[in-house]
C-alpha cells in the first residue's frame, strides 16, 4: 500500500510539473493556434536563470528562503521577457501566413534557444541546490513525499486558481477569450489583439519558469536539453486534456503523470518515454479532441 501511495504521489508530482508547462502551451494554442515548440526552452531558460540567481546570491552570503523566492521571481521575469521577444521575432511576422511556416519557425526557435544556452553556459548537467525548507510536519511521512513536492502541489494549485480568476473575471481575461473565439471579430470590437497575444506569451512563459525552478530544485540538476522532453510531454498532456482548455491541461497532466508513474513503477522504466508517445498516438486516434475538448468542425 505504501508503494502504491508513493507511486500515486510521485505521479501527482509529475502531473503538477507537466501542468505548469502545459498551461502555457494550451493558452498560446488557444489564442493563435500554434504549437509553441520553444515553450519547453522557455522553461529551461527559467530553470537556468533561477540557478544563476541562486548561485550568485548564495555566494554573496544569503542563505534563506528569500533566495529561492527571489530566484523564482527573477526567473519568471526573464522567461516572460524571452517569451515576449520570441513572439515578436518568430511568430508575429508570420501571422496570417500558412500554419506550416509558423510551426517550422517555432522549431527553429527551439533549436536556436537550446544551442544558445549550450554555447553561453555549458553542455554538462549542473547540480541544482534545493533551497526549499524541510517542513517539520512532513518528517513522519518523508519516505513517501518530500517537502519540495508539497510546494509543487501548492504552487500548481495556486497558479490554477489564479489563472481561472484572471480569465474568468478580469478585462484582460475577457479579451483573451474573445481573441481565442474569433480574432477578427475581437479586433472589430476594439480588442488590441497584439497586446492580448503578448500578454498570453508573458503569462504562459512565467508559469513555465516557475515550473522550471521548482522542478530543477526537485530533481537536483539541469542542463540545456531538459526543456525538450519536458516540453513534448507537456504537449502530450495538453492534447490529452483537450488543447485550448485550461482545466483540460491540468487534468491531462495529472492523468499522464499517474499513468507514467504506475507504468514505470509496476511494469518497466526502460520505455518510459516510448510509453508517453504511444499514449499520445492512442489519444489522437481515438479521441482527437481530448478529454475536455470539444471536437471542431472545419468551417469553410
Amino acid at each position, binding site marked *: 500500500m505504501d508503494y502504491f501511495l508513493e507511486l500515486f504521489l510521485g505521479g501527482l508530482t509529475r502531473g503538477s510539473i507537466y501542468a505548469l508547462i502545459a498551461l502555457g502551451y494550451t493558452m498560446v494554442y488557444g489564442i493563435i493556434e500554434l504549437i509553441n515548440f520553444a515553450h519547453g526552452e522557455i522553461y529551461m531558460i527559467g530553470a537556468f536563470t533561477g540557478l544563476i540567481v541562486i548561485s550568485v546570491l548564495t555566494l554573496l552570503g544569503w542563505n534563506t528562503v528569500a533566495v529561492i523566492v527571489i530566484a523564482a521571481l527573477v526567473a519568471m521575469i526573464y522567461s516572460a521577457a524571452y517569451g515576449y521577444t520570441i513572439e515578436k521575432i518568430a511568430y508575429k511576422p508570420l501571422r496570417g501566413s500558412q500554419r506550416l511556416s509558423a510551426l517550422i519557425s517555432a522549431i527553429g*526557435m527551439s533549436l536556436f534557444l537550446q544551442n544558445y544556452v549550450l554555447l553561453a553556459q555549458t553542455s554538462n548537467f549542473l547540480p541544482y541546490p534545493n533551497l526549499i525548507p524541510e517542513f517539520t510536519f512532513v518528517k513522519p511521512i518523508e519516505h513517501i513525499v518530500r517537502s519540495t513536492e508539497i510546494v509543487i502541489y501548492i504552487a500548481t494549485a495556486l497558479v490554477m486558481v489564479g489563472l481561472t480568476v484572471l480569465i474568468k473575471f478580469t478585462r484582460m481575461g475577457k479579451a483573451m477569450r474573445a481573441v481565442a473565439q474569433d480574432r477578427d471579430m475581437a479586433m472589430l470590437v476594439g480588442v488590441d489583439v497584439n497586446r492580448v497575444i503578448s500578454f498570453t506569451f508573458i503569462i504562459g512563459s512565467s508559469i513555465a519558469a516557475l515550473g522550471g525552478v521548482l522542478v530543477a530544485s526537485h530533481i537536483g540538476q539541469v542542463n540545456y536539453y531538459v526543456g525538450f522532453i519536458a516540453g513534448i510531454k507537456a504537449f502530450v498532456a495538453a492534447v490529452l486534456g483537450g488543447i485550448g482548455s485550461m482545466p483540460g491541461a491540468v487534468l491531462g497532466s495529472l492523468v499522464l503523470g499517474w499513468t507514467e508513474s504506475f507504468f514505470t513503477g509496476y511494469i518497466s522504466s526502460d520505455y518510459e518515454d516510448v510509453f508517453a508517445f504511444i499514449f499520445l498516438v492512442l489519444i489522437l486516434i481515438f479521441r482527437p479532441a481530448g478529454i475536455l475538448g470539444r471536437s471542431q468542425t472545419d468551417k469553410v
Partner: protein
Amino acid sequence: MMTLQEIKKSLFTSLWFMFLTFPIMVIKVNTIEKTIEWRWERMAAVGLGAFVLSFVWRYLIQRKEAGKKRAEVGSEDKVPLIPRLMSDRRFYMPGLMATIVMVVAFPFVFSLYQTNVMITALIYVVVGLGLNIVVGLAGLLDLGYVAFYAVGAYSYALLNVHYGVTFWMALPIGAALAFLFGILLGFPVLRLRGDYLAIVTLGFGEIIRLVLENWNEFSFGPSGIANIPKPGLFGLDLSLQQSTTFIYFLMIGLALMTIFVVRRLQDSRIGRAWIALREDEVACQAMGIDKTRTKLSAFALGATWAGMGGVVFAAKTTFINPTSFTIWESIIILCVVVLGGMGSILGVIVGALILILLPEYLRAFSEFRMLIFGVILVMMMVFRPGGIISDVRRTYKFEGLGNKAENRGE
C-alpha cells in the same frame, strides 16, 4: 534614411537584448568551485550586434511589406533569376555540360576525404528530395523522418549480420521496409490536423530510436553494428579509393533517379493532388480527392527514399548506432528542404549542398552549426518562405480578357 527616431528605436532594441541575455550570456557560475565569472565583454557584443541587426531587420521587414504590396497591386511578376536562366537555352546547355563534367571528374580530381564529404551531401540530396515530397508537395510536416532512414540503415545492417544479405539485395528491401513502415505509421496519424501530425511523427521518430537503443537482443543496443560491408561491384576486389569512387557514382545514379521520379511524380495526377491538398484540404475533398489515400501515398513514398538513403548510409559508414538517428537529424533534413525551397527540386539540391558542404569546410564554426540552423529556419520562414530557389507555380494567363481579369485582382 537613418532618422533620429530609428536610431532611438535601435538603441532601445539594443538595451532590451542586453537585458535579455544578461544572466545567461554574462554570468557563469561554477557551483563546485564556488566562483562566478563575469563576462562583460559579451554584453557589449550583444548590445552592438542587436543595434546593427535591428536596422537590418527593419529594412528586411520593410522590403517584405513592399513586396507584398506590389503583389497585391498585381504588377507584372518577375520570374526569379535562376528559373529564367534555366529556361534560356544559351545558358542552360553550357551550364548542364559544365555540371556533368564537374560531377564526373569530381572523385578523380579531389581527394578521398572530399569525395566522402560529397557522398554525404548526396545522401542528403536524396533524402531531402524524399522529404520534399512529404513537406514541400503534400504540406505534411514530418518531424520523424529520420525513423525511416533508421529503418533503411538497420534493415541492411541486420539482414547482413544474420543472413549475409548483400548491398544490392538490401537496397530494394530497405526501401520496401521503409515504405511499409510509412504506411503503418501513416495510417493512424494522417487523419490528424497538420500540427498534431508534426508532434506524432516526432514521437514515432523517438520511439524507433528508443527501441533501437533499449532492445539489445534485436539491435545490439547503443553499441551499434560494425563492419557492415561496402557495396560490391560484380564481386571485384576494390581498394578503399576505388570503392569510395564507386559509392560516389552510385549516389549520383541514385540522385538522378530520384530527381527523375520526383519530377514525374510532381506532374502526375497524384502530384497535383498533393499540391492541391497542401493548398486547401476542404476544396480538395469537394473535388473528389481521397484525402487519406493521397496523404498516405506522399508519406510512404517519402519514407521509401529515406529507406534507400539509410541503406547507403550504412554501407558508406560501415558502422551504425542509434545516435545517428536522433530528432536533430530529422531537423537538419527539414532545414535542407526549407532553405532550398519547399517543393522545388533544384532548391533542395542546392540546400543540401550548402548545408552539408559549408559546415564541412568551416570547421572553426562547427559548434555554432545547430545554432545557425535554428536561425536559418526562423529567418527563412519570416523573410523568404519559398526558400533560396522557390518553386515556380505553373500559371496560365488569360490574355484576351484584359481588363476583367485585372479588375478582379488576379
